[in-house]
């Protein structure tokens, strides 16, 4: 990565921040003990792990014993859903939304095969779940609702608090995939009425390969797998100590910085959206206001997202796309389909996800480089010409 790189793919992953790496370094060097070991080198590492757990809990207004470290957001989501399902022994009803990350959606599909029933509630044109619709989907044997806090592709925030209240009133467990929200916006598991919440460190400038699941005290779920009994048997395996330390430190700092960062990113975001829409024949995907501070998702009509991405990449701009061709699949993103985009519009989607380190100058550079790219590709497009 040369210095001229403009990285606008923070929704995919973020750079590890220096302070987090600094906190990790001792545990990548001299403090290598196994936290389960009795001896001094083990005990000092145990203390550090528990401190990181406290920091993580504090950032969510949770208790340390409600935090279980996992290998990332994917495992956290699976642990919540499969863990809650497994103790029901193959029957019962789950409600989720049609715009969840694959780490929820595909779990639900697999649980269907295992005998559970799943309702996928639709979303409106902005990608929002209507709590009324969700309420109507509740059945006698609904035991779990899983709705993400904010969507990773189009940034739309869900009415998590309201859904949580609904779940509680109906005695249903509530999980939220907050991977895109933790570290970006304030999160309070009490206010949100959640029973499970997933997070992933590399989305808030922490290390890759580590995440956590919040499990409300008193709620029993089954582990995904068995082993040496770590994480109070819910997530066994020798702890990823440097990862845990890095997660705790990154989350502590991200949480402190939320107010300033939110304002900064929202202003960059709104400038970028305005500029991109100015190109013409560009659609904003997701909600106009209730979206992640750093999320910009647009469809450039008449052209295909991957070709835009690749052209941006040659200009040193890193973004991503919900286009089928960029994901190597044949279907465009289920999220873009769920908000009712036509095939061709879905194929033209590009996500710019802003984060720590992005500047106004970055946004201006993108707004300077994007229009000629779009024009060049449109001039090659059979659909563009046809529609003129």
């Amino acid at each position: 990565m040369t210095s001229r790189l403009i990285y606008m793919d923070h929704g995919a992953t973020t750079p590890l921040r220096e302070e987090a790496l600094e906190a990790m370094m001792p545990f990548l060097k001299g403090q290598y003990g196994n936290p389960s070991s009795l001896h001094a080198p083990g005990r000092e590492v145990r203390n550090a792990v528990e401190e990181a757990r406290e920091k993580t809990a504090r950032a969510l207004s949770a208790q340390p014993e409600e935090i279980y470290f996992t290998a990332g957001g994917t495992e956290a989501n699976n642990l919540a859903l499969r863990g809650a399902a497994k103790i029901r022994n193959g029957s019962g009803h789950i409600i989720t939304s049609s715009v969840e990350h694959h780490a929820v959606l595909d779990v639900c599909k697999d649980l269907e095969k295992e005998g559970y029933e799943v309702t996928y509630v639709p979303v409106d044109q902005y990608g929002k779940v209507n709590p009324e619709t969700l309420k109507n989907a509740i059945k006698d044997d609904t035991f779990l609702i899983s709705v993400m806090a904010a969507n990773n592709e189009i940034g739309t925030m869900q009415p998590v608090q309201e859904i949580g209240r609904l779940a509680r009133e109906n005695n249903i467990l509530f999980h939220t995939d907050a991977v895109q929200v933790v570290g970006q916006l304030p999160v309070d598991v009490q206010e949100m009425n959640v029973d499970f919440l997933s997070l992933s460190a590399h989305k808030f400038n922490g290390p890759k390969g580590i995440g956590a699941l919040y499990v409300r005290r008193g709620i029993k779920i089954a582990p995904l797998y068995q082993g040496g009994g770590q994480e109070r048997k819910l997530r066994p395996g020798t702890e990823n100590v440097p990862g845990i330390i890095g997660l705790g430190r990154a989350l502590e700092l991200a949480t402190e910085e939320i107010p300033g960062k939110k304002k900064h990113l929202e202003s960059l975001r709104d400038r970028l959206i305005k500029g991109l829409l100015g190109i013409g024949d560009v659609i904003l995907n997701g909600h106009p206001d209730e979206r992640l501070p750093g999320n910009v998702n647009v469809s450039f009509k008449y052209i295909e997202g991957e070709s835009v991405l690749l052209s941006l990449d040659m200009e040193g701009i890193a973004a991503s796309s919900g286009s089928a061709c960029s994901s190597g699949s044949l279907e465009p993103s289920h999220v873009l389909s769920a908000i009712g985009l036509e095939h061709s519009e879905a194929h033209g989607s590009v996500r710019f996800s802003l984060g720590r380190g992005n500047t106004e100058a970055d946004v201006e550079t993108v707004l300077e480089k994007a229009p000629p790219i779009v024009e060049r590709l449109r001039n090659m497009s059979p659909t563009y010409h046809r529609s003129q």
Partner: protein
Amino acid sequence: MYNDKIVEHFNNPRNVGELKDADAVGDAGSFKCGDTMKLYLKLKDGRIDDIKFQTFGCAAAIASSSMLTELVKGKTLDEALQVTNQDVADELGGLPPLKMHCSNLAADALHNAIANYREGKQAG
């Protein structure tokens, strides 16, 4: 992911555009992956004298379109029909496995154009 040759064809595609006075026009589209291509041929003495394309698609689709036009220019229609998707991919130095289907577009559009021509359909 893409080799230099593909990137070069994507950046500087040969024979982009329309031919207003085309003798044959062909379409191809992958409904599923969403790519579409339009191909215009101008014939002279039974050979492809001029050729242009328009493509909505990913870099692989665009580069394949470009490469196909280069491969068939100057060929007779029968010769052109011998050109396969694999030839296009091979000439590009290989496509990523997941992108092979993107190269199908180009040969499909060519076959469609030639069929249209032989069925006596005119451009437009």
